[in-house]
């Protein structure tokens, strides 16, 4: 409410009321491209976590019962370390003298170090690892509740393993997948620390933009406006995913 209130102020000195700040945001193509890049970062991170998360989830439910607690521990492990530590670890991996570049140089695959840090690709990869538990936990909880008899039934009716996977297991796991996507999206779009440190100065994303307006330029109304726009944009995506989630549950139970 406070955020919405401040975003309606006309000047940085918090005078007057009006939609001037929103007009300013909408009137500049730069702001739209910042918003677009931020949301696309979320989409790309979700896509990568889903591509890696689904096979990992399947591996988990097929794994022997003894191994499952250990695997769960490994999955949750990133959540137990601070996001700052994980971010700096990625700096060490992606840096010009980092693990990836040194390995590639040693193998003779590249002549000069590649620029991985401070690129969108590097950021998406790092964020995917950082947010992976948020994808895996809901996915696994849904997958492990699937009735094993369904698979037997599918096999008895003549479906192969792949067909069972695509026609039975995956559709039934859809609610978990969507919940995971929702969490990863909301969290990667707003991951200020990782975005600034791994993304670097070349990328201006909404959280950094907001921070800069608030603490460097002291334009609180515009900072509040950026906050509101980001909030609404994320809410819109989340609502859409939720609606899809309800439809997918209807698919399962219907």
């Amino acid at each position, binding site marked *: 409410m406070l955020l919405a209130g401040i975003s309606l102020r006309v000047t940085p000195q918090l005078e007057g009321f009006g939609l001037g700040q929103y007009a300013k945001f909408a009137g500049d193509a*730069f702001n739209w491209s910042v918003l677009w890049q931020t949301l696309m970062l979320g989409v790309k991170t979700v896509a990568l976590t889903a591509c890696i998360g689904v096979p990992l989830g399947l591996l988990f439910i097929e794994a022997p019962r003894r191994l499952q607690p250990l695997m769960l521990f490994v999955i949750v492990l990133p959540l137990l370390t601070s996001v700052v530590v994980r971010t700096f670890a990625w700096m060490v991996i992606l840096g010009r003298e980092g693990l990836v570049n040194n390995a590639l140089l040693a193998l003779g695959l590249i002549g000069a170090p590649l620029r991985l840090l401070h690129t969108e690709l590097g950021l998406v990869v790092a964020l995917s690892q950082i947010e992976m538990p948020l994808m895996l936990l809901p996915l696994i909880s849904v997958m492990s509740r699937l009735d094993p008899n369904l698979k037997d039934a599918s096999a008895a009716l003549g479906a192969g393993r792949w067909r069972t996977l695509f026609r039975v297991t995956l559709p039934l796991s859809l609610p978990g997948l969507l919940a995971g996507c929702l969490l990863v999206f909301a969290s990667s779009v707003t991951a200020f620390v990782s975005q600034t440190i791994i993304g670097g*100065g070349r990328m201006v994303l909404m959280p950094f933009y907001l921070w800069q307006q608030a603490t*460097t330029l002291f334009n609180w109304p515009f900072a509040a406006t950026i906050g509101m726009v980001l909030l609404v944009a994320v809410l819109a995506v989340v609502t859409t995913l939720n609606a899809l989630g309800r439809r997918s549950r209807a698919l399962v139970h219907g």
Partner: protein
Amino acid sequence: MSSPHITRRTLLAGGSVLAVTTLLPRAAHAAGRVVAPAYPGPWEEAYRAVVLPAVKKTQDVDTVLTPLLSLDQVAKVKASRGTPPLDVFMLDPGPVVIATEDGLIDKFDPSRCKNIVHLQKSFFDEWGVAVAAQIVGIAYNPKKVDRPKGWKDLFEPKYNGKVGISGFGTTFGTSSLIEISKQYGGSMTNVDPAFAQLKKWLPHVAVIAQNPVAVNTLFQQGQMDVTYTNYQTVSTLKGRGVDIEFVKPDTGPIAFYTTLHVVKNAANKDNAYKFIDTVLSTEVQAALQKPPYSLLSVNKNVPLQPDMPQDLVKSHAELASFVHHDWRVIAPLRGAWIERFNKEIRQ
């Protein structure tokens, strides 16, 4: 899911013990404390090691040191003017202008600092007092690249992919970009030539740092081998064994002063003056100037030699001959430059 062992009574008892223990140290120290900021990194280390023990010893005041950059301090105080979270401001010249215009600073009374007699008149005014001089120039890694001579060298092809830059968000970034602009026909108020130059050369930039702390880490990790920064940052990194050297640009290095101020409505105003007075004292200024802290003294009794390298600066008179920027002119323009930098450097 309720646990049978925790009754409401034990919970309340535990809670009140916790509440009392958090209140106790406050009560014990309330008679003499001051909340003062220091820039994160080298400044914070120096103040923690030198100033805090001195303030405790000579004034019997406990200092709560809060690591915050200039603009963050201004933002924090601005957000709660009536009960500011700080008693003292530590600011670079740009933020001083903002804080003064916003009425966040109390008028400075030099007569309340007995050590003020050791300072040149130009080092204090009605709003605050300088506590250290800073020199801005070019830093490079002598193991990896040739020694650059001046601002124009940053754009030499031999440094392609090795130069890291930072924008107008910091004092040294703003000052350096102004000097770069001057080399290509610009001035203190006209940075268009710097933008034109940056834009052309952008694909060859190694990294763009978003804040001063990032500059240090990026240099340490070998992400860049040449950049512009403060002398004192170079000295600190060198002290840690990083391969780094400082170059005075051939067109003259930049000098500016970091100042201390009393925050308006400060809860511990008397202690704020005691804190500032201690920082100005001959002993503290001398200790802060010793490497690796290398905070250039403002106290007449503490000569710059032999703590500073001979080829950097010999005396305060020489320091005065370095390039000085008028921040009262720059501050109103800076916001637009920051926003322009955002747009022009974006991939």
